């Protein structure tokens, strides 16, 4: 199967999944308690006024009509208007998307930088103190709830040591890069880095621990195989054996996990964004849920869901690309 046929198949499957996501997200409103009209209407609103508000919000239509209108609107890029602020839901969601993407990508980057070297060191020094230290770190990283870790990092690095800000976003990455390129001013990039580092560590710690364990186990498996013995018998230096041959084969399954976890990070940034007042999709969805602002809730969940589907397609393609044994089948 060629790459185009493979991609077409994956995209069609993805569209089907997205339709499922949209349907479930749309139905959520009817399955959860709390009438959106109550959040908009005056406390003493008579039934006639409540009915008028329901009509204005399009909530008085039969379910199938509301569903059809919602689907048509989505196809046209219209996610509706916030019940609370009357602003365009789509614009608001896409304005928040870059902050979440930056955070998820930075968390992934930190995870890669820390976890892969640690995994290699751990595997290469099995049953030695460095191995125990690395596996202990991994165990702690997987077991630590990120809301607690976030608060602890703020207490230590912001409040006690005063070397980093406690979160919030001073500037977006695009703005920081524009300052660097067009004004030769590095302060934007520094501000971006200083503000994102603690939330990224918080979000990426679990991920770091997971990749470290995968790398360690993969390396141990590869290092025990016969081709490694053959390479050593040929007199190849140990560094080349480990990094050129064993690590390359270990990285293939890690790419899959990296991609899938990136989707999880985007969806799972809710707690981290709330602790660090990070203006991303996760915080937006929390605020919207508290206000029963359904256009924003639905839009945010759909964007996260679509992101997950797209990442999966990319990962599948990349996996087949980097591993010739798999191919586009």
């Amino acid at each position, binding site marked *: 199967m060629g790459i185009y046929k493979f991609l077409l198949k994956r995209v069609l499957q993805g569209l089907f999944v997205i339709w499922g996501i949209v349907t479930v997200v749309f139905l959520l409103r009817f399955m959860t308690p709390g009438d959106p009209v109550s959040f908009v209407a*005056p406390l003493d609103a008579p039934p006639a006024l409540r009915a008028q*508000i329901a009509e204005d919000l399009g909530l008085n239509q039969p379910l199938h009509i509301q569903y059809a209108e919602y689907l048509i609107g989505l196809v046209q890029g219209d996610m509706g208007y916030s019940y609370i602020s*009357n602003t365009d839901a789509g614009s608001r969601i896409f304005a*928040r998307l870059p902050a979440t993407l930056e955070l998820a990508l930075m968390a992934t980057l930190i995870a890669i930088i820390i976890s892969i070297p640690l995994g290699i060191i751990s595997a290469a020094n099995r049953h030695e103190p460095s191995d125990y230290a690395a596996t202990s770190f991994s165990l702690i990283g997987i077991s630590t709830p990120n809301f607690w870790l976030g608060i602890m990092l703020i207490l230590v690095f912001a409040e006690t040591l005063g070397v*980093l800000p406690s979160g919030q976003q001073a500037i977006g990455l695009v703005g920081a*890069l524009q300052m660097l390129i067009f004004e030769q001013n*590095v302060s934007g990039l520094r501000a971006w880095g200083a503000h994102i580092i603690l939330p990224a560590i918080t979000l990426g710690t679990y991920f770091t621990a997971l990749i470290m364990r995968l790398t360690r186990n993969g390396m141990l498996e590869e290092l025990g195989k016969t081709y490694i013995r053959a390479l050593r018998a040929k007199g190849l230096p140990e560094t080349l054996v480990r990094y050129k041959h064993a690590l390359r084969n270990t990285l293939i399954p890690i790419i899959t996990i990296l991609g899938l976890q990136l989707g999880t990070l985007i969806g799972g940034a809710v707690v981290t964004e709330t602790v660090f*007042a990070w203006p991303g999709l996760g915080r937006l969805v929390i605020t919207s849920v508290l206000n029963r602002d359904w256009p924003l809730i639905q839009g945010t969940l759909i964007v996260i869901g679509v992101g997950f589907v797209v990442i999966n397609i990319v990962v599948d393609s990349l996996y087949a690309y980097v591993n*010739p044994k798999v191919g586009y089948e």
Partner: protein
Amino acid sequence: MGDKHKRNHHSISRRGLIGGIGLATSVSIAGCVGGEDEENDETGDLEEGHLILTLATEPQGLDPHDHEHTETDIAARHSYEKILDRDPSGEIIGGIAEDWERIEPGHVRFHLRDETITFHDGSELTAEDVAFSLNRIVDDDVDIASPQRTFISGVESAEVAEDGAAVDAFSPDLNPAVFDNIAAVGGQVVQREWIETNDREVINTEANGTGPYEVVEYTEDVDIELTAYEDYWGEQPDAQSLRITWTEEASSRVSQLLNEETDIAVNVPPEDVPRVEDSDVARIETVPSQRAIFCPMDTTTEPFSSTEFRQAINYAFDQEGMIDDVLSGFGNPVSQPSLEGAVGYNPDTDPYPYDQDRAEELVEESGHTDVDITLHTPVDRYLRDVEIGQAMVNDIDSLSNVNCDLEQRDFGALVDEAFDGDPETAPDFWMIGWGNTAFHPTFIIEPYLTPEGITGQYVDDDEGNELFQEARTEPDDETREELFQELNQYYHDQAPWLFSHQQYSIYGMNNRVEWEARADEVVPAQEMNL
């Protein structure tokens, strides 16, 4: 040949991939690692003349009439002004109106200031704008159905008077609380033309008021940037620019304060107060607010239809113990619907003492022994509401003849059931907090204790309603005050609620800020000195 080509192609792409990761890493490291001086710049955002105010939740927009939300009112008060306002102690003072008077029982007049007052777009404020603003709130047919209609209870319409020097407001009866209500939450003056020529999205994301600050930029979900309005008719604020932002997580808000990233952090949790008090850069300012926490009971159904049973619930709850243990002392026991400082507060009405024996006797007298009841409480709506609910239920359940369970609820779903008027779905016993920013008993009694109120389905009390109507229509101020005091004693004795406590407003403030905290939960930057 083909395979070889494919392998080479793969090899180059993988190198490219690694190179890309390396570049991204370099960029990230460059971003994160800076000189020591630059890093320190990032930890303290406080600049001279620039004030940062951190709220607990995001304002719901900038339209001053399209909300019933404390944080939205706090934001709106910087760029919009009220007809009447309050000083920090709660006394009514002039706003856009310099003077006000009652012309006849249902007719009041607001005399506008002689000074030229301009909106931020440069146009002059007119009496027409003031009348339109009132009508936009009280008349569902004028632009929007404002949720603030409840707050200006009784006023039905407004019109220009004295050739544009004043505005008249009309109520169907005496409406003694009209000035208190107009000085309460919301109700700022907008420009009629600007409202009528812009859609709701613009009105919610931009502002055109007469207040001391004009909005420079509102980035939804991030912050509101404001700057002092040069042509403001009143005194220029000390802080020439202002940033209003919000952080939902309380401990993070406190960390921002202690890391000098903000000047004011609202709603500091009691457990974090020592952290702030021990710091060199910030301090705590507290004030008893006009927000009462109480638990209405459905007096139309058993067992809560029994006065003895309702009194028993009040005797069973250790108010002072809860305030000490759960709120670290940041609260006052409540004995009646009005709080100290409000009209009609009865200083001789003491809170129910904690007396479990008396509570058990009263349960016996009520005839509802061994009854099962459930208290519905919201989660994370009020200061430590979860723990307060647990303390209440623990105390009531410890009675030998009552079984009490706790149901912790999403606030939206809870009030939806309580306010929709359907007695079938309404909870019998539930917790609510009510900020009486009008400092007047009608602001709390009318919605919660009269059949016409938002929880009218809970009320079956002709005597109480008659007393209330008598008090609210009494023209003489002194007699009215006495009647409301009697009414507060009456409601204490009838115990339609489990009276809990008066909530404190707890602010964390940077030491460079001078400000007297207010009882009405408003945080105006124009009152602060840097």
